[in-house]
């Protein structure tokens, strides 16, 4: 693989949040939200990041965008390590990387009109002297973007509360595209939407990718959504990646016991299939990521655990080309 194909490289990324501790309050403790993950994104592909609540999906996206400064590790965007960049350089580098958030209610400023929300990134970059667009150019681009994401340009002067959830998410997408980024980090962008609207937005993401050659890091907890949108999928558990594979491989041949359980737990909307399916029901809940675990993070809930799983972290192993799994079984 040529190095120029790779848009984003994440190397051993760790994000630990301190809590507790202090004078007379015992030692400093940490939440190990993301605990050493490595992956890369090639140009034009969609990497789906899937896992249950609290496994560190969103923290990963935020650490990549440098909204949280990572504890350690490297984030290389087009070969430039974002973790080492300061102020001005970081702002310039971030232009190529935008985010779409989950909650279309909380992520849009209620006091700004749709047009202003979409124009804001361009105005900010104008202010930094990175872009030099005239007011008219910005207006034109806002209107183009609105039409492209399926909103009428006449809605430019409306406020977020006048839009439905699906339309708000379209505003969020238009805003993310305003700077013509290469990489879009999508943090559960369809989880808050109803199925019929969700399908519209998923198709919009696909169309935009084709049209603008975008690369997505797409986070969701719904495995069916991930399967639909992604070319490759990474399954996260407790701050680490359990398995990475091409989307087809992963769904046909899941290797990690966690992936297998996760896939079998997803309901399929067909009563006949549902009756015949065998479920792997996991016992217990996802443990809290507040301890250092010497062994496999999935040990407590795994049906195939062995003694040495508790003592050492399983290394990431290439099973087939492009199919990596972190489990001692392989």
């Amino acid at each position: 693989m040529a190095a120029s194909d790779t848009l984003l490289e994440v190397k051993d990324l760790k994000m630990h949040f301190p809590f507790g501790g202090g004078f007379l309050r015992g030692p400093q403790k940490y939440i190990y939200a993301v605990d050493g993950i490595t992956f890369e994104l090639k140009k034009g592909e969609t990497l789906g990041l899937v896992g249950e609540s609290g496994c560190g999906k969103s923290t990963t996206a935020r650490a990549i965008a440098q909204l949280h400064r990572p504890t350690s590790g490297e984030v290389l965007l087009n070969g430039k390590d974002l973790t080492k960049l300061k102020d001005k350089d970081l702002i310039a580098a971030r232009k190529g990387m935008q985010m779409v958030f989950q909650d279309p209610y909380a992520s849009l400023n209620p006091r700004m009109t749709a047009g202003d929300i979409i124009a804001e990134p361009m105005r900010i970059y104008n202010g930094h002297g990175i872009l030099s667009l005239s007011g008219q150019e910005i207006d034109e681009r806002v209107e183009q973007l609105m039409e492209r994401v399926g909103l009428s340009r006449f809605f430019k002067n409306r406020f977020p509360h006048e839009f439905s959830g699906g339309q708000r998410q379209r505003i969020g997408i238009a805003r993310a595209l305003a700077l013509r980024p290469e990489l879009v980090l999508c943090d559960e962008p369809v989880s808050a939407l109803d199925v019929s609207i969700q399908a519209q937005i998923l198709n919009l993401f696909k169309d935009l990718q084709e049209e603008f050659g975008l690369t997505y890091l797409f986070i969701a907890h719904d495995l069916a959504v991930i399967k639909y949108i992604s070319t490759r999928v990474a399954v996260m558990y407790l701050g680490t990646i359990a398995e990475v594979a091409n989307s087809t491989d992963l769904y046909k041949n899941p290797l990690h016991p966690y992936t297998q359980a996760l896939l079998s737990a997803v309901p399929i909307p067909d009563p006949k299939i549902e009756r015949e399916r065998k479920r792997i029901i996991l016992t217990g809940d996802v443990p809290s990521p507040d301890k250092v675990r010497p062994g496999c993070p999935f040990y407590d809930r795994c049906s195939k655990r062995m003694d040495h799983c508790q003592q050492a972290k399983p290394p990431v192993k290439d099973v087939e080309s492009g199919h990596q799994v972190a489990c001692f079984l392989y």
Partner: protein
Amino acid sequence: MAMNEDIILQVKNLRTYFNTDEGIVKAVDGVSFDLRKGETLGIVGESGSGKSVTNLSVINMIPSPPGRIAGGEILYHGKDMLKMSKKEIRQIRGNKISMIFQDPMTSLNPFLRISTQMMETIQLHQGLDKKAAKEKAIEMLKLAGIPAPEKRIDQYPHQFSGGMRQRVMIAMALSCNPEILIADEPTSALDVTIQAQILDLMKDLTDRLGTAVILITHSLGVVAGTCDTVCVMYAGRFVERGPTDVIFESPMHPYTQGLIRSVPRLDREDGERLSSIRGQPPNVIDLPDCCPFYPRCDKAMDICRKKYPKWKTLDDGRTVGCWLYSEDK
């Protein structure tokens, strides 16, 4: 209409309206269904379609004002619950018909121990003394798969995880051996692996106790796996109702068809494009008296704009409300 022995709950032409400043919100506008003993009935629909209001109406928990039940009948063993006194209702609610809600954190009182909350119901409806009620509560928690229930029962809700809290809710709801359990999005706030656990538990317990279940959900997958009968709801009305297998195999109403096609599926081939329903669900304020789905429907005809479609029952046991299948126009 001949009274079927098995039918324990019959809802007939239920209409629940809310008065607001902008107009009358017809949250539920003419909903009818029967619930048989031991049956699991699913009500599926998108946000705002009136699923929850239907069920709050059934147990008479509509906040009034602004809400009011504008018409219809809710027959529990042939007796109209809308005409019962508050005292009579109280003897049924929580005892014969109980509920579990979506968010187990907000439906448990954070200030009270689990024991207090569970024993209250048991003591009230079953007339047990404190000691016996606690024993019963512990037994129910054990049934619901909570480890060390003797210890856990004296803890507070915040000491339980989301999945565990939902187990507590199920234990509480089933503690009086209800005939009907109304589950309002019981797994929507939970992760898939926990959702599988909870659905499994609900199925197991209600099968064992012979409880009929009304399951409200927006997930077609959950309905497919758990329900015998499914009702598809749109803008305050059912559009299609029938046995789960029939509805999923050959949906007839254009909305049901669109809904089933727009769900991404694990077993679908790659590269297939998801079909979506254009537009958005309507605002239910001052809806005109016509098919509410026609602005989004590909098969809309002139008549759909003028009159609400008549119900038609077919040989396979399904009822569908669409002009496509209605002869007298």
